[in-house]
């Protein structure tokens, strides 16, 4: 054993070290924390108290968004793999949630939402959540504890890398995945989140992203595209059929994602208010329409409506409505769903095979295309009457908003693509990206994790 212990120690030592450092820093500053907390307590007395109703809804929403990653997304993806890979696929989402959460409280939140540095990134004043306490933050949810806004946003930072794993499933090396997505969060996600939501240049420019169409879906979609191309196809793709090994698991995941998405979108209004309700309705309707549309198109195109098609339509609708959920009324929500179902169907079952990249679980066609489309539709349908800061083209806003939206998606897509490419190149050189042919053959569950998903 000692032999593999040596080797594996080598493999994970860095991770181990980073991790311990984080923890020890954690240990080092309880007192800092403490002071912070006392100040908090002090100010809290004076400062505008948080509203219990709004707090209750955002607490629930944060829990709902956590559920999206685990078990929601984990099972949605896990069911789509072949029987030899579900555990590794589930573990990808699982670990992204954990590492993403730790990094977020230590420095990520400060980088994304902390005091702005040149419109590009936040500084480290809020390192270890210093000064982030029970009192509301004037702009980040004036009626809920600042700490609550932080943890709500944490869930977004955690699910984004998890979404990417769908494109690299069934062949990436576990340790490479950890390095890739750990670094990616810092280099790509934190800056982008800052640009759009944290006081950065895109937000300042007037670009609007209600709940993450760009910050979450365009970034994960672009990263997925670059990653699956650099990683290469799964051995045998597309020749050998690779049908999902457990679709009920995938449909369960889809249901939990839909459920959690109510927290994702309706929670993004940061309170239990009218906008939360209209975001809730828009989300539900867009998902419903996209599901039906995908199913009908597939029915006409392939001859049969499928359950997996329906579930894909649901996720497409949810991803597409995300950037506008709180800004549009019923009519546009219906249209968003219609466009989402049609476009993403096209991207997944016609464009992908045509272009020939192996996006194992269709992150690009569903999240990338969906998020991008939603952001652009915002330029048409956002309406001040619904709570949008600016009117879209159809509501008399002319092309101003549309211009900002286009700038946002292009800038973010380009930045993400480049960032992802550089990170992966480096990792590829240092430790490599893929498992060996034999390990892939045997399956990642056994070869990477020494486990089998099922035993009869």
């Amino acid at each position: 054993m000692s032999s593999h212990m040596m080797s594996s120690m080598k493999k994970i030592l860095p991770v181990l070290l980073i991790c311990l450092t984080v923890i020890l820093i954690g240990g080092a500053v309880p007192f800092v924390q403490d002071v912070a907390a006392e100040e908090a307590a002090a100010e809290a007395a004076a400062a505008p108290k948080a509203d219990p109703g709004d707090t209750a809804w955002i607490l629930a929403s944060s829990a709902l968004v956590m559920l999206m990653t685990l078990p929601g997304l984990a099972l949605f993806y896990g069911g789509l793999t072949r029987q030899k890979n579900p555990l590794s696929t589930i573990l990808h989402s699982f670990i992204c949630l954990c590492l993403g959460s730790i990094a977020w409280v230590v420095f990520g939140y400060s980088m994304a939402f902390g005091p702005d540095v040149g419109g590009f990134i936040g500084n480290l004043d809020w390192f270890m959540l210093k000064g982030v306490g029970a009192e509301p933050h004037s702009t980040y949810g004036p009626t809920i504890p600042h700490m609550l806004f932080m943890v709500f946003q944490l869930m977004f930072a955690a699910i984004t890398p998890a979404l990417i794993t769908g494109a690299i499933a069934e062949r990436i090396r576990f340790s490479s995945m950890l390095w890739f997505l750990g670094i990616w969060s810092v280099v790509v996600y934190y800056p982008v989140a800052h640009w759009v939501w944290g006081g950065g240049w895109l937000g300042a420019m007037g670009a609007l992203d209600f709940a993450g169409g760009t910050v979450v879906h365009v970034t994960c979609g672009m990263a997925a595209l670059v990653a699956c191309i650099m990683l290469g196809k799964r051995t045998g793709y597309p020749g050998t059929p690779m049908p999902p090994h457990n679709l009920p698991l995938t449909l369960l995941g889809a249901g939990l994602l839909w459920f959690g998405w109510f927290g994702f979108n309706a929670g993004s209004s940061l309170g239990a208010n009218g906008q939360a309700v209209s975001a809730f309705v828009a989300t539900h309707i867009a998902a419903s329409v996209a599901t039906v549309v995908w199913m009908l198109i597939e029915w006409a195109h392939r001859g049969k409506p499928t359950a997996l098609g329906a579930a894909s339509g649901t996720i497409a609708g949810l991803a597409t409505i995300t950037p506008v959920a709180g800004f549009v009324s019923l009519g546009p929500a219906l249209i968003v769903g219609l466009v989402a179902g049609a476009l993403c169907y096209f991207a997944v079952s016609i464009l992908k095979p045509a272009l020939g990249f192996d996006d194992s679980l269709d992150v690009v066609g569903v999240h990338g295309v969906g998020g991008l489309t939603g952001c652009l539709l915002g330029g048409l349908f956002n309406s001040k009457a619904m709570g949008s800061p600016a009117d879209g083209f159809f509501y008399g806003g002319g092309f101003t908003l549309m211009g900002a939206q286009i700038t946002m998606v292009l800038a973010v897509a380009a930045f993400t693509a480049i960032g992802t490419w550089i990170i992966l190149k480096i990792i590829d050189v240092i430790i490599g990206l893929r498992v060996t042919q034999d390990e892939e053959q045997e399956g990642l569950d056994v070869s990477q994790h020494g486990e089998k998903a099922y035993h009869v």
Partner: protein
Amino acid sequence: MKMIEAVIKPFKLDEVKDALVEIGVQGMTVSEVKGFGRQKGSKETYRGAEYTTDFIPKVKIEVYVADNQAARVIEAITRAAKTGSVGDGKIFVSDIANVVRIRTGEMGESAL
């Protein structure tokens, strides 16, 4: 003694079993198999990736019988398993040297 192996359509299993019991067969061993042959599988589609599996779910029945019983067994299986459409399956007959009942150690036909 003979080993009679039949590959049939899964939903015919119960009928075949009953037919065999009727003619006095006291035991059989069944396994799930996949068959390749003239019958073509049905098309499946997953997110636009279409394919037809060549291997179709079948059930394999193994019955060991005394030589004199073989003909009746074959007849019974053929009758019960037949639908008339492609894929009904096959019956394979071969000789076996000996049988042992583990519980009692009996050998030969009496062990069946």
